């Protein structure tokens, strides 16, 4: 059998070792995803990329591709579940797009647009999460954190600094800074760090850069995220 599977009836080729999501994005088949990043190991925590494989749900970012899989992704039922996941993320934090520097380049917002999320549906939590503006060049706005752990993974695996961590369990889980004071200024975090570049939402921000790109020119203004699978193709590293 050839190395292909189908997503909503469309044939997708894959290389051995690829996950379903990686193969689909390589073939320009967009499966909505949030905590996946092409340069990092799949995490499987946001559940947004959940698909049905031969009738059973699985996160496509962690599922190894296998020949002959019949995958459903863009069905009304799966899309409704993805919308609900996004709505739960929206009410759990404080996501006020009009005053967010990341608006227009935020993956959470772009996915809400692409999936047609018209309201938060649930009651807002309005959590109290003070910002950390201690660092001279970087700002942390915890109000927008979706716990994808990309900054944690980047800081530990790429920067070798281990600046970020998650603390707490369940609904009290939150992002913290690994310093005795808990302040970003008391770490060796730098704007050039990989961890400073990977936040899909508006938590880790460069100071004095807000709203530099005008509305209309931002990454998700011209094209919906679903037409930008190109940007999320897996990166082939040398020697791998």
């Amino acid at each position, binding site marked *: 059998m050839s190395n292909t599977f189908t997503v909503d009836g469309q044939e997708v080729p894959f290389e051995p070792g690829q996950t379903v999501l990686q193969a689909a994005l390589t073939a320009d088949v967009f499966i909505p995803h949030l905590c996946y990043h092409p340069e990092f190991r799949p995490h499987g925590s946001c559940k947004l990329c959940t698909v049905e494989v031969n009738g059973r749900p699985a996160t496509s970012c962690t599922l190894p591709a296998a020949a002959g899989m019949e995958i459903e992704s863009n069905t009304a039922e799966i899309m409704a579940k993805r919308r609900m996941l996004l709505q739960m993320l929206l009410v759990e934090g404080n*996501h006020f797009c009009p005053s967010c520097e990341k608006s227009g380049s935020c993956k959470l*917002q772009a996915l809400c*647009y692409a999936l047609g999320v018209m309201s938060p549906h649930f009651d807002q939590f309005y959590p109290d999460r003070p910002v950390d503006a201690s660092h001279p060049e970087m700002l942390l706005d915890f109000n927008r954190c979706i716990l994808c752990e990309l900054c944690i993974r980047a800081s530990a695996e790429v920067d070798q600094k281990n600046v970020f961590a998650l603390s707490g369990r369940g609904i009290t889980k939150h992002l913290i800074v690994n310093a005795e004071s808990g302040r970003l200024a008391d770490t060796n975090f730098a704007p050039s760090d990989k961890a400073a570049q990977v936040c899909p939402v508006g938590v880790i921000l460069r100071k004095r850069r807000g709203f530099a790109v005008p509305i209309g020119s931002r990454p998700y203004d011209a094209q919906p995220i679903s037409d930008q699978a190109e940007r999320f193709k897996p990166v082939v590293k040398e020697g791998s």
Partner: protein
Amino acid sequence: MDAPVKKKLRVATTSLAGCFGCHMSFLDIDERILPLLELIEFDRSPLTDIKHCGPCDIGIIEGGICNAENVHVLREFRHQCKILIAIGACAVNGGLPAQRNHLDLRDILEEVYHTDPGVARGGIPNDPELPLPLDKVHPIHEVVKVDYFLPGCPPSADAIWKFLTDLIAGRTPVMGHGLLQYD
């Protein structure tokens, strides 16, 4: 014989804890308001200055809920309108006014009317005519059932036009890329 005159849909609008920006964006449909007025007529609205909402087909709410009067007006709209629409970021998720939600209301009033320089130090207003503020700002769907949502700060005139024309034509409004925006 003349064709029967089609009854116009009755539409009420109001701004609660909002800035009237959504109403301004609605007026940005410009001359398209003329064909729209062939299909609808306004009940209570800042455009008519009618003070109370009568029986309506569509109610459009801008702004969230920040005080007791907002709750009364919202309930009147829900009672009188067959279809209720939350329009704009504030009605949909509380928006900018809701950014006071992590602060204590007393502290806010103290700062604005006592300690902060600038405003006349006449004390916290307590005229019985003034509606009491709520301790937190809420989106309207946390108080009444809302049938449709149109986010945006404000939603563009094109988005409002698409939404209303879809709805009036009997279609579920579908906002394509560029029309559904949260900012």
